């Protein structure tokens, strides 16, 4: 920590916790990157806890929680000297995002027990939930910033009351950032009167360890993602099966878990590649770089990404990437894509991925330059670079409509 640096509060709906140790690891990375330049960092993790009960019972549960909350959130030492408090946000199961937004603000107010967030600079992740909670609980004169990461933002903005709330949030924020081009396009199209306010800020990636490794024959494939429909692991398995028919030494490791896992395991068996596919399940985030370094290639077949952090992490770990044109990664790898690997279109035909793999295999390592890609990405997404973006934003006038780097 730096005594002359700002006192910052980070308010977030996602932060690693014992139940889901990888959720929100990018927020912890942001804290880890920025904290050394701050005098104090308070992290408020507003953790959504859904309660399925009748309205009458919910009132009693809410009343009990109002008594409990102010006395039940002791500080937890966290990344880089920051102090973490976890606030359970009790909510009924609802798809009403404005109602959720209200509950985030209300429960944070209860946890603060009549006080306001002490920090003069507040940075929230996900404007509609944590951002609204930060604005409603900020001390007078505090500057509130927010970063949008949510891949489901389009669904939120399709709801009229939530869209109106988002508009108000954009009005009140000192600075508003997105992590990738797809989010910028969506927000600018929905709120053209705020288009000039939208800035880019990156998720920090740890380049401090690892490095470019000796090029391998691209046989050990790795995918790191939740096993959900949007990630198109079924598509990846089908393409992998075709490639493996050509090269029987190929293997595929799937890191991550999700409700589609049983169906995907069945698909791997049906495609006769089960013995070559390793379903690792969820792993601790700090083990990911080591896992990447044990593989030759990261394959990312997602339908839609706001940023594509895992793709940059793979380049940081020194392996090439085979990645779908799903939005975020094109922005994240801009200028370094050819050095880092190969893109393929989001298409249901596995031949599209197969062709891209064949093309990459044909030009790697001679036609790629991972060291150059790594250096370029570190300059944009390394801890120092991202910390500088945040500190510049917090200390100066609101950044508008341009890269903060």
């Amino acid at each position, binding site marked *: 920590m730096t005594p002359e640096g700002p006192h910052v509060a980070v308010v977030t709906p996602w932060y690693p916790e014992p139940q889901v140790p990888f959720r929100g690891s990018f927020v912890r990375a942001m804290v880890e990157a920025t904290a050394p330049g701050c005098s104090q960092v308070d992290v408020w993790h507003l953790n959504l806890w859904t309660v399925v009960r009748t309205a009458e019972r919910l009132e*009693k549960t809410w009343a009990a929680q109002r008594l409990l909350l102010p006395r039940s959130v002791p*500080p937890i030492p966290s990344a880089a000297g920051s102090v973490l408090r976890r606030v359970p946000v009790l909510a009924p199961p609802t798809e009403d995002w404005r109602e959720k937004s209200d509950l985030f603000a209300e429960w944070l107010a209860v946890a603060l027990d009549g006080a306001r967030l002490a920090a003069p600079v507040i940075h929230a992740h996900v404007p509609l939930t944590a951002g609204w909670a930060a604005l409603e609980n900020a001390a007078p004169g505090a500057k509130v910033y927010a970063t949008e990461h949510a891949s489901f933002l389009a669904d939120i903005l399709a709801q009229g009351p939530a869209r109106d709330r988002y508009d108000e949030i954009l009005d009140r924020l000192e600075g508003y950032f997105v992590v990738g081009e797809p989010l910028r396009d969506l927000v600018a199209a929905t709120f053209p009167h705020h288009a000039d306010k939208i800035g880019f800020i990156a998720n920090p990636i740890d380049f401090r360890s690892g490095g470019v490794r000796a090029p391998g024959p691209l046989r050990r494939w790795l995918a790191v993602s939740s096993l959900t429909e949007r990630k198109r692991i079924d598509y990846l398995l089908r393409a992998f099966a075709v490639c493996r028919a050509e090269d029987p030494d190929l293997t595929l490791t799937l890191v991550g878990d999700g409700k589609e896992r049983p169906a995907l395991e069945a698909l791997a068996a049906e495609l006769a590649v089960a013995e070559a596919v390793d379903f690792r399940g969820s792993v601790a985030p700090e083990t990911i770089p080591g896992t990447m370094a044990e593989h030759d290639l990261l394959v990312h077949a997602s339908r839609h990404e706001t940023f594509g952090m895992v793709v940059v992490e793979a380049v940081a770990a020194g392996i090439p990437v085979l990645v779908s044109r799903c939005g975020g990664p094109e922005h994240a790898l801009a200028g370094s894509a050819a050095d880092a690997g190969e893109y393929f279109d989001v298409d249901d035909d596995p031949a599209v991925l197969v062709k891209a793999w064949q093309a990459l295999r044909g030009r790697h390592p001679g036609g790629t330059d991972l060291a150059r890609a790594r250096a370029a990405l570190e300059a944009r997404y390394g801890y120092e670079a991202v910390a500088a973006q945040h500190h510049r934003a917090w200390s100066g006038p609101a950044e508008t409509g341009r890269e903060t780097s």
Partner: protein
Amino acid sequence: MRILYAAPISKRYNAMATETRLAAEHGHEICLVAQHRNYWEAHPLDPRVEVHWLGAGPKARRSRLVTLALCRGPRAVLRRLGGPGERAMQTWNRRVADPIERRRQDRTNALRQAYRRQAVLDLVDAADWLVLGEPGAIDLLADELPGLLARRPELRTTYSYEDFAEDPGA
């Protein structure tokens, strides 16, 4: 300290296992009240954790006469009538049999909730620290918490057990 970790629904497996182990490592006496699920057969908890497994709990009494006269009997008769009987059975189910089943299920849920609540309350007086490790724990004790906190203001309460900055007794 003696910690009571209440997790009556017990779906936050990782949190329950990680946090109770950490509390034991820190030298606390840790007692977990949890619903037994198959998961725990393959993922044993730390042996230092004292576990009070909750069973299925009681079931509401079901009148056999009501079941026969208003549920099974009419269904059997209407099923035998075929086509028009099927439609009549659907109507009968919707208007008569299903509401009876729902009321029975509500009574069973209330009995089970009372059973779980009592299991936690039986242990809370011996505890210095109450961890409400899931939303179900707050809901379970919602009626008792105001009185409990008024009676025992020194009772430490948290929603998890982690490496807190101040951990009395660790």
